[in-house]
């Protein structure tokens, strides 16, 4: 660990204390990130492209991996590339200590495929397809999908405007005890 810790300036540590209390985790995150950067010791604002991020073993099999990159990326180009701080955001949102609020917020943004601020029928369809996978024996038929989506909207769309917004989403989530991530 000593080798990696020297690369992280000390003052950054005190700056990050808001989010990560565990320095070890921070070091480990930085190590992983600098490996992704390709060994060279770039500045903290340098970005790692989405392709490289997706090679992480934790993300390789995740059906939401591209959405993850897009949601956590602060890049102006909207290419899903992450810098170190975005990477830390990603990690802390998925850590065990993150609050339900943060988790549900980011989950909502991950599920909101077209970034319009609500989950409409098309978002839900994409979400269900992501969950079930694209193979023929697992994915739902068109009729099943229609039924499922109308049922979901009926259950969770409280103000009946045809979409699920963040508060409605959080309401549903709060009722489900095992919102594990």
């Amino acid at each position, binding site marked *: 660990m000593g080798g990696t810790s020297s690369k992280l300036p000390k003052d950054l540590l005190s700056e990050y204390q808001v*989010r990560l209390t565990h320095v*070890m985790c921070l070091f480990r995150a930085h190590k992983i990130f600098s490996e992704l950067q390709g060994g060279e010791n770039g500045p903290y604002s340098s970005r790692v492209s989405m392709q490289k991020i997706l090679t992480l073993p934790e993300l390789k*099999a995740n*059906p939401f991996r591209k959405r993850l990159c897009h949601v956590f990326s602060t890049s102006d180009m909207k290419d899903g590339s992450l810098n170190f701080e975005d990477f830390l955001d990603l990690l802390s949102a998925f850590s065990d200590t993150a609050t339900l609020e*943060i988790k549900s*917020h980011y989950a909502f943004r991950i599920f909101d495929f077209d970034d319009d601020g609500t989950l409409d029928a098309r978002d839900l369809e994409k979400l269900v397809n992501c969950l079930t*996978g694209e193979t023929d024996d697992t994915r739902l038929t068109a009729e099943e999908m229609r039924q499922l989506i109308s049922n979901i909207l009926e259950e969770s769309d*409280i103000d*009946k405007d045809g979409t699920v917004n963040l508060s409605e989403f959080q309401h549903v989530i709060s009722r489900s005890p*095992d919102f594990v991530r």
Partner: protein
Amino acid sequence: MDGRVSFDADPVIDFESPADEDGVHDSFSQLIQEQCHDLHDVIEMTPLDLEEDSRDDVECLEADSDAPQQTDHLIGERWSSDTLKVLSSMPSRTIGRSRGAIISQYCNRTMQLRRRRQSRPSIQHFPRSARPSIRGYGVETDAAGFEEEENKRDRLVNNLQNLSDSDRVRMLRAMPLSLSEKKELRMLVLNKAEHSVSQNQIPCCSQLKYYIIIALRHGWYGWLSFLSSLQLWQTALKCVGGRFGTGVLSYFIFLRTLLFFNVFLFLVTGLLLVVPQAITHPDQDQNITVRSSWGLEVLTGAGYFSHSLLYYGYYNNQTLQTGHSCSASGNGTSCSSGLSYNMPLVYFFTIGAAFFITCIILVYSMSKSFGQSFRIDKSKGLLAIKVFSSWDFKVIKKSSVRLQRANIGTQLKELVAEVNRQEQKFPVLQRLFRLFIHMLAWIMCLGSTLACVLAVYYFSEHMHGDLRNRTQAASSDPLLKEASLLAVPVVVSSINLLLPGFFNVVAWMEKYDSPSMLNYISISRNLLLKVSVLGVLCYHWLGRVATDPQSLGLECWESFVGQELYRFLLMDFIFMLLDTFFGEFLWRVFSQKALKRKRKPVFDIARNVLELIYGQTLAWLGVLFSPLLPAVQIIKLLFLFYMKKVSLKMNCQASGKPWRACQMTTIFITLLCFPAFLGATVCVTYTMWSITPSAGCGPFRGLKNMFQAGKRWVHRLAAVNPDLHWLASAHSYLVENPLFLFLCAGIFLIMIYFHSQVVDGQRKIIELLQEQIENEGEDKKFLITRLQHIHERKRRVTPRPVKGASEVHTHTLSHTHTHTHAHTLSHAHTHTHTHTHTHTHSHTHTHTHTHTHTHTLSHTHTHTHTHTLSHTHTHTHTHTHSLTHTHTHTHTHTHTHTHTHTHTHTHTLSHTHTHTLTHTHTHTHTHTHTHTHTLTHTHTHTHTHTHTHT
């Protein structure tokens, strides 16, 4: 009109709400009214684009052309871009997307927090900023919006600054913003704080303080990371969770919880009982050396071990002294000055306190996990929950991901099919058959359980008699005698091993539809078995052995019971080992090699957890008789963890039926608390209260029961020191009198009752609020539809056919019959209405048409609609204005409901007035003649109404 009108014409829409909601409505309308003023600047831009984008026309036409397809307006709705813009600037949508919305939300929250900290919870003084504002964050691109966001941020920074440090950190941590933004916020807050502080401080000192703080913080980080590395089995648990999902993970977490309970128990008994006893030399002679067969002694716990710290019999009943000695019966003042250690008292209170603290921890964690998993509003929403939160992000292995996907796919299909088939029922014969099968299965399970219990009962009786014979004969082989002690534990453990398998076969025969049902059934059957077997064993120990120890030649029956418990615990462990080896490893090899099956067996969480609970019950039961039993349990659990982990990785695959982890944890904790801990406590308390301890050994020798130790001590204390006399009387009143216990239980029950009542009330309020939200949603939808219509009308200059108009008129007719109150209300405003009428009349032919339409609508709803719609007609760019405006009026409508009742006379007057007015106007068009017709109709109607009133 096209398909959407059908929704307007729906006569079910009723905005009247019960009168007791007035307060809520008032506050709502107040809030919205305030915000209406702010809204103009946002909306201002809408008319500008109105003229410009011509692609809207295409979209509108498209929308109309495929209107018949839009049967489901919830899903298939297509709005024009203007409407979409308005929609997307509504707070409900922006909050999931824009940064400004988040900032303002947290601004409000910090405000509330500050308010709470300042303990001034008045709603009246709420400043505007603390309310959810619609303004500003809808349009991020224009300068005004940006400025607004800056403003918000400043306010947030101010609020944050006024919070305490810990609150601020917590608040920042809870914000779903990116790290750089948070950093910026924090810097802003700190800068401000420093500005205000640094003026009156010596820079050198602050510099030094800063360095010290930095150094301390670094030290603190080091300590924290050290602590996190200490957390038990962190990486192992992560690994298990990643491969097998949260269901299996919950088993291991439960195991860890049990380990902590035992460590606690061990620490308490070890520090308070074992160590003091070990450092003072026991008065018993240590010459009893029966070193016959060491291996067997480890298994039976008898022989050498029976006179060791492991068991109750080794502990003595003296007051251990450090420093100068004094006799226990001598003058007490000298005793209390030295450090005296009254062994019986300590033994009694240590066990009691350990149980009490365990109970508190258990109840606390149970209530916490209950609160997490069972919410107040227990409504449906199964499908939504399944879709939104079924993905286990912990799973990272590729094959497991595939399996999880397949699981979710089949589950969703099943659920959808279930929703579809809810009405469809099985034929009577089939249901009867199923019922019969279930009955048969239960009978089989209960019968086998009963048979096992009886077998244990008679077998233990037989072994008891056998032991008695052996001791009386005294000539038999000691080795055989010891081995015979192991018979009952072996029998019980094998029952525990074999019968669950039988239950599984029976459940397989029953063919349950839902896996969760299957799991609950299997848990309850296994539980029944274990509880009844343990009950019989407790009777055996406390009823047979403890009441008649002489017949067995026992000097110390407590030690004997402790040995028995030790044997059971050990046997349980050995059988678990065997089960893991034969049941999991060999079965896997067999099924893969011989049966050529691809699948590995699945880890049976329910059975394994119940075995853990069984073992823990034994440990709790045994603490009194053998204070070091928790240590044995700790070793057992440690072994078990690594063994199960290895076996899991080698032999098992991720479960086909996913277990929902959190609910499972709740159930495990509940089971641990209710039958296991409660049963153990009852047994231990019974032993302490009403069984005579053996006279020759242990700390309680010579007492009538263990409870007397405390009593005697209190009396002695009172005798020595008269000031403490109240303690004795309090003791006798509180502890010996059952009335006090009953009182406590009664208070407890009353509290539970009150809480359940509160929850009930909350549920009712939630229902009301949900209804209200639904109404608001209806409102919103209605207005948006209106907006869309008007927009379409603006685009197309072609007149609508006359036929459509007449349709609407007939509709009005039906409505005026039902809603006379609303009707009269709208008439109060008809002055302005007719005014706009003339105004638009000059424009085009189509305009009059829309107007009549809106007129009818206002009839059905409230007068507010008329008001707003007339607004939209005169000035087209106040679309959204009407949107919020109407909200207000709908609510005040219910408020002033009674008011309209009294003024019937004036109503009729104004009515006739408008009647003539409209009449003159509609002269020009022949088809609007129907309109006037309806009006006369309603006129007569209201007339009759007033008649009945006067």
